[in-house]
């Protein structure tokens, strides 16, 4: 039992399927298995798009222990779209700076968000149970989302048109059919095992102790990492602040440590006292000893079964790339699955989920493996190099750049995605900056409809971002297969608007409407073609996107750039949109035999 948190207990009524006639199977367009942060996010995303979603979980409460702690800027932006970003930021501890110490001296520090003009910070620390609680609350508010607790999937039989699931409840067992199955049942993934699918990678031979302690302390809200501190010689220690005056201390123990003995208070408390000094009062909140692996499934899509989060890939904790990458999986999958189910895009679009997110998983595994290899050297020579880097870091900037105590989660750039339309050769007009096709769109402050807001808040579907007059007439795009929002970026103060003063600034709503403006299944309404004027209040939209008069960006529903032009026309836009919807030829109609 925690002193700072009371676990909620959820319940579901007796499953209505138990009353059905024998042999009768209810059919669901989408079933999500696993109500952790990733499964909940998936269910919310799909339900917000207008799909009826069934979410099954074998437990009846939230995460036991603080577990996933650091939520990255990109995750917060996705959570904003899901209606849960603000409670996470409000309850969590915002931080941007990390410091690395050797012994007691600082050798390196980083700032995750060195520039202003983004709504969300680099990182927010929040115990996983709070995030899950906020997501459950949001899920319960969505009429199309049915959340069933204590529903354990015990068998899965995939078929060409979906999968049949056997579900066990306290009241009995039943079967149901899912047209599409999203598997978010965690690192041990029972469904992955039931289907006999492999997950390959390596286990690291080291053990770590997490101690969450409650204490009053005035340490800054920063990530502090020690190599070889006097209070824990020869090993590493990590300190993070959590909500509710809880602090996480992570001690490297080595492979030979006895995990059961190390969890006992009489072992843990002296370790913490050695670190904090004998006078500091604290209470133990939660203790856990863990090992970890870096591995992933070969493919995340198996027909109509789609794996997301830890079920599909796992990393070491250094870099906070676990839950953060799982939520990016969901961000990537939601719009694609919706369009495929809706018949607006070919099933092949879902292969791009696999292509894009396996690349992202490899990037996360690479970075977290490199951090782990630096933190826990495997050989005497490896340790000598590591120590030489740390010794030289104080005097030499090049050595500071090599200190690797974790490279923290950032959004993956989907550079090689099959959905991208590569830049045309623009000669001297080539784009500067980082917003190439595949890039997650940078945020920037904007003013829309007389209110201050943020660029990313404007994008929840396919969006054209146009700078000044462009060669694209909205009417020419009236028959595209998906709603296409147009945003026209204009410089601050232009077109007769008055510059805002501090007194007149209104803040745009920070939570999205319950449903997107364009309901699922609706045709491309004419209204979506009236461009929305976006005032580039600080000039950062134009600067970050290298926008010049005539520049057009096509943005995906998950806020990644997918194509851009210095001069656009309707045929080029149609071709890029078709490609972004999974038609590889750029032909909006799938090729059929003559």
């Amino acid at each position, binding site marked *: 039992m925690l002193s700072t948190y009371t676990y909620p207990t959820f319940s579901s009524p007796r499953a209505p399927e138990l009353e059905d006639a024998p042999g009768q199977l209810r059919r669901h367009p989408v079933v999500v298995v696993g109500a952790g942060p990733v499964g909940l996010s998936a269910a919310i995303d799909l339900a917000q798009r207008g799909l009826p979603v069934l979410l099954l979980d074998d437990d009846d409460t939230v995460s036991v222990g603080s577990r996933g702690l650091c939520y990255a800027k990109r995750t917060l932006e996705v959570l904003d779209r899901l209606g849960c970003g603000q409670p996470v930021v409000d309850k969590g501890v915002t931080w941007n700076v990390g410091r690395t110490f050797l012994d007691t001296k600082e050798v390196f520090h980083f700032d995750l968000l060195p520039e202003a003009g983004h709504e969300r910070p680099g990182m927010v620390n929040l115990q996983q149970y709070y995030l899950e609680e906020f997501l459950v609350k949001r899920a319960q508010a969505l009429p199309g989302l049915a959340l069933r607790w204590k529903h354990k999937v015990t068998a899965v039989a995939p078929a060409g048109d979906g999968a049949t699931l056997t579900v066990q409840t306290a009241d009995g067992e039943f079967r149901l059919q899912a047209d599409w199955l999203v598997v978010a049942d965690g690192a041990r993934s029972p469904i992955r095992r039931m289907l006999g699918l492999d997950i390959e990678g390596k286990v690291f031979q080291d053990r770590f102790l997490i101690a969450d302690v409650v204490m009053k302390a005035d340490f800054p809200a920063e990530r502090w990492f020690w190599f070889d501190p006097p209070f824990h010689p020869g090993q590493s220690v990590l300190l993070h602040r959590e909500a509710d005056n809880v602090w996480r201390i992570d001690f490297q123990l080595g492979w030979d440590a006895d995990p059961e003995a190390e969890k006992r208070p009489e072992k843990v408390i002296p370790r913490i006292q050695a670190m904090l000094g004998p006078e500091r009062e604290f209470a133990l909140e939660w203790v856990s000893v863990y090992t970890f692996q870096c591995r992933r499934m070969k493919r995340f899509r198996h027909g109509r079964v789609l794996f997301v989060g830890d079920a599909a890939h796992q990393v070491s904790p250094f870099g906070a790339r676990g839950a953060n990458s799982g939520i990016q999986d969901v961000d990537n999958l939601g719009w694609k699955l919706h369009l495929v189910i809706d018949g607006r895009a070919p099933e092949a679009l879902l292969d791009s989920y696999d292509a894009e997110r396996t690349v992202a998983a490899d990037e996360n595994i690479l*970075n977290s493996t*490199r951090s782990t*290899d*630096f933190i826990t050297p495997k*050989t*005497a*020579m*490896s340790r000598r*190099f590591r120590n030489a*880097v740390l*010794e030289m870091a104080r*005097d*030499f*900037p*090049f050595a500071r*750049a*090599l200190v*690797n105590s974790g*490279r923290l989660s*950032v959004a993956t*750039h989907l550079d090689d995605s099959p959905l991208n339309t590569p830049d045309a050769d623009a000669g001297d007009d080539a784009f500067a900056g*980082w917003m190439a096709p595949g890039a997650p769109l940078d945020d920037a402050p904007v003013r829309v409809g007389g209110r201050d807001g943020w660029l990313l808040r404007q994008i929840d579907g396919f969006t054209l971002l146009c700078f000044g007059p462009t060669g694209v007439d909205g009417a020419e795009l009236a028959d595209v297969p998906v709603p296409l929002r147009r945003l026209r970026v204009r410089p601050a103060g232009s077109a007769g608007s008055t510059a805002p003063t501090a007194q007149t600034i209104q803040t745009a709503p920070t939570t999205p409407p319950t449903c997107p403006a364009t309901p699922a299944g609706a045709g491309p309404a004419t209204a979506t073609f009236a461009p929305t004027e976006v005032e580039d209040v600080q000039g950062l939209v134009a600067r970050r996107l290298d926008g010049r008069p005539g520049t057009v960006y096509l943005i995906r529903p998950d806020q990644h750039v997918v194509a851009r032009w210095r001069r656009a026309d309707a045929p080029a836009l149609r071709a890029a949109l078709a490609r972004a919807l999974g038609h590889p030829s750029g032909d909006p109609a799938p090729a059929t035999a003559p």
Partner: protein
Amino acid sequence: MAFEHLHTQPHLGIPGRRPLRAYTPGDTFYEMLIAAHDGLDDEASQRLNARLVLLLSNHIGDLRVLREAFAAARQGL
């Protein structure tokens, strides 16, 4: 200690390529360095290091750089 010829700022990368993350070239180098020692016992690793110093010194060539590098490495030993 000030150096006239030796680079002490981060200098790893591929000429003409701009890394998305500043840490990537350094981390790639470090991984290559550790991988170069894979499977060697400590004695063999020491010999590999000696050979590396010789190869890289010859590649650098400029004796002024090498003189400063040797002095920098010697600090504190």
